[in-house]
């Protein structure tokens, strides 16, 4: 940070303690995740004895084989992947589209539409009226319940607005002279130059879609339509993990326990996020800043 010629002894001690404290914070943050990882890679029966803290004692990938052989888990994974991919594309496109229209100062009714949206930031219908709406729309036990009720967010729209305002107007003018309409301009010019904003919102919504379990709990009873997080919630909350073992058939092998399968499922569910996030880091810090300043 600051270049300094000399350090006093007090400063050296301060620096050392500070580094030490930060290492402790990192350890506390990482260790629970590490614990699950090593336990998922340990033989299930052996793991019941406990005491696996740093490395697997009896290394085994059977838990993972059991997870991937389990139809219920794989179906739920498929739902999660589908709802994340489809949800992100639709949410980003739709929200950005509305934001672009609202970013144009000549839009008739712009102030009124902005007011309409701002109200939704501070007040909402709440759980039961929303539930009734979803029921009336016949979206209970339907895949679209994961997509349509969250395809738009006025908060994300504000982040887009901030980005769109920075785009030089000349860019649009040139396209207009070429005879492009506003929708074409949005798709062909605005979206490509707004990739940082698109990536930010895609990341936020992607994480939401991937992690959300409550939508499934509330609106979906059909087991073939529940995402993996809802599946895990039902396993954790109702401790029905014995069912998974029964399903997987201890037949595959006896070393798998409900606990070890749960661990492996947790790792499989979390890994995509952990792997993706270092690459997406640079986007969300910027997005968060804009969101927080405007919000």
């Amino acid at each position, binding site marked *: *940070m*600051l270049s*300094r010629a000399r350090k006093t002894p*007090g*400063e050296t001690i*301060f620096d050392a303690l500070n*580094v030490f404290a*930060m290492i402790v*914070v990192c350890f506390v*943050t990482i260790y629970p995740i590490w*614990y699950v990882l090593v336990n998922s890679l340990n033989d299930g029966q052996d793991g019941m004895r*406990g005491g696996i803290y740093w490395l697997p004692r009896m290394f085994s990938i059977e838990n993972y084989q059991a997870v991937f052989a389990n139809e219920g888990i794989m179906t739920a994974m498929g739902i999660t992947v589908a709802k994340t991919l489809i949800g992100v594309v639709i949410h980003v496109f*739709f929200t950005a*589209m*509305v934001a*672009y*229209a609202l970013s*144009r100062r*000549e*839009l*008739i009714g*712009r102030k009124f539409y902005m007011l309409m949206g701002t*109200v*939704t930031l*501070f*007040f*909402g219908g*709440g*759980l*039961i*009226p929303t539930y009734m*709406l979803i029921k009336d729309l016949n979206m209970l036990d339907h895949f679209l319940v994961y997509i349509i009720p969250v395809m*738009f967010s*006025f908060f994300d*729209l504000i982040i887009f607005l901030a980005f769109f305002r920075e785009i030089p107007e000349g860019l649009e003018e040139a396209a*207009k002279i070429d*005879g492009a*309409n*506003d*929708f074409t301009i*949005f798709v062909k010019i605005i979206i490509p130059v707004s990739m940082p904003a698109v990536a930010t919102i895609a990341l936020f919504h992607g994480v939401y879609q991937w*992690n*959300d*379990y*409550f939508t499934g709990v*509330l609106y979906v009873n059909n087991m073939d339509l529940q995402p993996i*997080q809802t599946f895990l*919630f039902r396993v*954790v909350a109702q401790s029905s993990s014995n069912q998974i073992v029964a399903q997987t058939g201890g037949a595959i092998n006896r070393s798998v326990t409900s606990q070890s399968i749960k661990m492996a499922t*947790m790792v499989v*569910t*979390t890994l995509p996020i*952990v792997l993706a*996030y*270092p690459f997406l*880091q640079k986007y969300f810090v910027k997005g*968060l*800043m804009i969101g*927080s300043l405007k*919000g």
Partner: protein
Amino acid sequence: MNASLNDIPVKPAAPKSKSAKLMTKWYNQRYLQVMVLLGVAWMIIFNYIPMYGIIIAFKDYNLITSISDAPWAGLEHFKAFLDDDELTSVIRNTLGISLIKLIIGFPLPIIFALFLNELRSLRFKKAVQTISYLPHFLSWVILGGILATWLSDIGIINKLLLSMNFIDEPISYLAEPSYFWSIVISSDIWKELGWSAIIYIAAMAGVSPELYEAATIDGAGRFQKMFYVTLPCIKGTIVILFILAVSGVLNSNFDQILVLKNQLNDSASNVIDIYVYKVGISQGRFSYSTAVGLIKSIIALFLLLIANSVSKRLSQTSLF
């Protein structure tokens, strides 16, 4: 204004009236209008229709009749909530968890950011930061699973405490109401510490190095610089986040508590959001739980306005 060349105005009649001009202007921006109106339609359906649905709080609604056919009930459901046996425990749990979270959980990210800001090695700083916000991206279901394993009577926490002779026999922490608040608050801090610090770190990056140099020349130590340079410079950010935190005290972390609650710890985990869910969805008392939810939203709105005006008066910083 910026009429496209292909958008030939309908009929350029000689002296146009005001409304005809508006029509032409609207027609010329019809693509934009369709784009925005799709969003408005979504908001009407998914934001405003549920707001209208709040009307059932003043009616006796059941799933068989329609909202408009349901008989009026006046303020009956609001009175029923005030008379409810669970009222005191709901208020105690909601405010208790939120206020402790505010007192401990609000300053911690600032302190973390301050010390992180003092690290000399940029690379180390980045690494710590990256690790610290990883948990934010994990779902509460996963963390709930980890916590349930760790806190069970054969879990790692009990083993650790037993081996150090802090306790004589294992405790099922999640089955004891007395531990519930601590579990909720500490796991929330664990998950969000690094993430909440991002905004402060970004704000600190904007502090001019000249201020630090001047302070150094004046003989300020590291702690003095934190207090007299860094903190005052990020005061605005702190105030805004504090307003948001105060207005959110009635929002318990629903996702988190739903995962961690169970029959045994109900007396400590029954917060307002959980109560609305339980009474509304599980017991089907739609009107009553909507009334409870409405009370909550209105109080939250007032809290936001109060926090905003207080901070406007005290520090000239406000949300709106």
